[in-house]
């Protein structure tokens, strides 16, 4: 093979070339002085489509939407100072939900670092606790190793966000490049210990009241199908965390749906009775477990996770297996014997019959559950669903028939209002053949409302269903239930005209309140291509039930 001819390139050109080689075809960001060399280089790329966000947080969530929909690392960019600080929330959100994100920020020139230069902020220091890893690049040459490493780290093991801070003079520095590094990709994960697999299989085979508890790691690992096979072979009633919804179809006979704070009574009651909990890619988050001492109090625990630091973190496992959950489940499968626990399945069935999730108004599109069900009835499993944060998020988690991994994109760990709409835009850009529906609230939508114009500009197939209860509903509900109905700072006095807001941004809108046949109007809206806002009022007093009071054990549910 002939020796490649060396090219003399700037740091900025190297970054762009490495992104292209990495397979990045769409990224989101906002330029500014300290990242202009990279933008200049980006302007010459024929491979990369840059989506101009209108706020860096929107850009970060847009990239997250791409990453969550595909599982591949996605890229966002921002300038130094305020650009970087605006990005932080989206990065922290990616950290808590283990989303592979590569954030590239401009920094003031090296010689000015530490001088309080214009738009200088310690991006490296600020991002340490909210990234999986971060870099402050000190020479253009280093970019050749740092950029592939950033992608490798973001995608390896438990995925997460990586930030690369690049001083402006490093972006302008010329280097001779003769050999290009391979794109960064996920490191192989060591095989799980065979002895642990055998012991876990024996424990599953011996259990009389087992439950399978799936977390977001199952989705990240691409192990949903294997998890369902295990459930079927070992006849395991299965619960899912908020992050795992879609891993097993909700209407699968073994599914008990979502557990925890807003799970169905039958789900939390079954957990209370189980004698073996098989936790897979789940981290015993407090919204899932309630008071930890009261969570599955009689159960032995098998905990399978790719991140060894999750084992024994909240609950001590009887068997802890560090490894890729898909690989572990695959190796468990052949060791599972035909189990005999008909009594337990009968008990679970009777719990389901006695304490199902109650969804009042499911047939009336002017109620929360009814609206969600009406939207679902217009779509098939190919649609992707994103949400913002609040009551609407929990109603959708409870009522939308999620049946496909990566169908459901929601901010779980950080619970960030403002996530839904930009994430939906990102998901639609990554998978343009799908309809993407964002369920949002009248509070949340305003936190990144500026991205409506991005949706219009990109003409993405995003349908924003705005569930307007004139309030910060989840706060209103908590004040109603736990603060003696002292409603404070949660009822909106002023209300924007959301139809005109959307139209003003270039997004067509319909108001279901004004439609004599809301179901027909909804069906029309959802089948039209392109962005659309669908506004629907719902009553302020509607609550998400059941609810485990914060700090209480899961069996102490209110309502439902």
């Amino acid at each position, binding site marked *: 093979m002939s020796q490649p001819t060396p090219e003399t390139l700037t740091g900025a050109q190297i970054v762009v070339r490495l992104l292209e080689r990495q397979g990045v075809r769409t990224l989101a960001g906002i330029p500014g002085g300290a990242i202009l060399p990279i933008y200049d280089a980006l302007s010459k790329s024929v491979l990369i489509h840059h989506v101009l966000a209108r706020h860096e947080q929107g850009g970060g969530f847009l990239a997250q939407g791409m990453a969550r929909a595909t599982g591949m690392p996605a890229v966002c960019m921002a300038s130094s100072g305020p650009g970087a600080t605006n990005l932080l929330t989206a990065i922290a959100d990616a950290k808590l939900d283990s989303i592979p994100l590569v954030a590239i920020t401009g920094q003031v020139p090296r010689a000015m670092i530490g001088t309080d230069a214009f738009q200088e902020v310690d991006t*490296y*220091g600020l991002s*340490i*606790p909210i990234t*999986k*890893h*971060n870099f*402050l690049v000190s020479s253009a040459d280093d970019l050749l190793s740092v950029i592939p490493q950033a992608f490798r*780290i973001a995608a390896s093991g438990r995925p997460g966000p990586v930030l690369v801070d690049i001083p402006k003079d490093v972006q302008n520095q010329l280097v001779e490049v003769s050999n290009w590094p391979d794109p960064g990709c996920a490191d192989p994960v060591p095989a799980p210990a065979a002895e642990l697999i055998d012991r876990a299989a024996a424990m599953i085979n011996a259990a009389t009241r087992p439950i399978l508890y799936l977390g977001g790691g199952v989705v990240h690992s691409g192990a949903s199908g294997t998890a369902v096979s295990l459930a079927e072979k070992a006849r395991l009633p299965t619960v899912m965390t908020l992050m795992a919804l879609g891993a097993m179809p909700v209407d699968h006979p073994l599914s008990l749906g979502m557990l925890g704070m807003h799970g169905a009574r039958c789900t939390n009651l079954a957990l209370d009775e189980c004698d073996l909990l098989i936790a897979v890619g789940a981290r015993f988050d407090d919204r899932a477990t309630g008071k930890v001492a009261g969570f599955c109090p009689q159960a032995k625990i098998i905990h399978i996770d790719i*991140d*060894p*630091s999750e084992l*024994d*973190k909240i609950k001590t496992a009887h068997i802890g297996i560090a490894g890729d959950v898909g690989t572990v489940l695959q190796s468990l499968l052949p060791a599972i014997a035909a189990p005999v626990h008909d009594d337990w399945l009968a008990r679970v069935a009777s719990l389901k019959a006695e304490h199902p999730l109650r969804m009042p108004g499911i047939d009336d599109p002017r109620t929360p559950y009814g609206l969600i069900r009406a939207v679902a009835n217009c779509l098939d499993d190919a649609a992707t669903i994103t949400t913002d944060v609040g009551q609407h998020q929990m109603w959708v988690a409870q009522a939308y028939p999620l049946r496909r991994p990566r169908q459901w994109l929601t901010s779980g760990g950080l619970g960030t209002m403002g996530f839904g709409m930009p994430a939906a835009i990102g998901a639609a850009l990554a998978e343009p053949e799908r309809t993407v529906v964002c369920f949002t609230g009248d509070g949340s939508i305003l936190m990144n409302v500026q991205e409506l114009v991005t949706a219009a500009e990109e003409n993405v197939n995003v349908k924003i269903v705005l569930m307007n209860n004139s309030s910060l509903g989840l706060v209103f509900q908590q004040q109603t239930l736990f603060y003696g109905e002292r409603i404070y700072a949660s009822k909106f006095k002023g209300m924007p005209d959301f139809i005109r807001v959307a139209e003003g941004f270039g997004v067509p809108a319909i108001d279901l309140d004004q439609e004599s046949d809301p179901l027909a109007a909804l069906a029309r809206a959802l089948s039209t291509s392109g962005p659309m806002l669908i506004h629907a009022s719902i009553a302020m007093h509607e609550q998400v039930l059941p609810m485990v009071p914060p700090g209480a054990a899961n069996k102490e549910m209110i309502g439902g």
Partner: protein
Amino acid sequence: MNSISRSENQALARTVLELDVNNHPGVMSHVVGLFSRRSYNVEGILVMPVGNGDTSRIWLLVNEDERLDQMVKQIEKLEDVLAVHRHGAEHEVFVRLEEFFR
């Protein structure tokens, strides 16, 4: 407290951690950040480059509490940490240094 009972107390309650890390300006922040954000006090800290200076060794003296196992796992996850070893408080690295802290 006399010196004997003080060292007995340390023997019960302290651990010395030895970390091999890549030697660059951000590593210390990454390591101590894990402790500070959990308000877990680091009692003693010592760093020197090793060999040609590509790596350094960080010695940490910490109080043992029930979070220590989790701390070690978190340290092991850091990209720039190559190895972590646990020693008892009797490890002489900090003992020898004591004369500089009189």
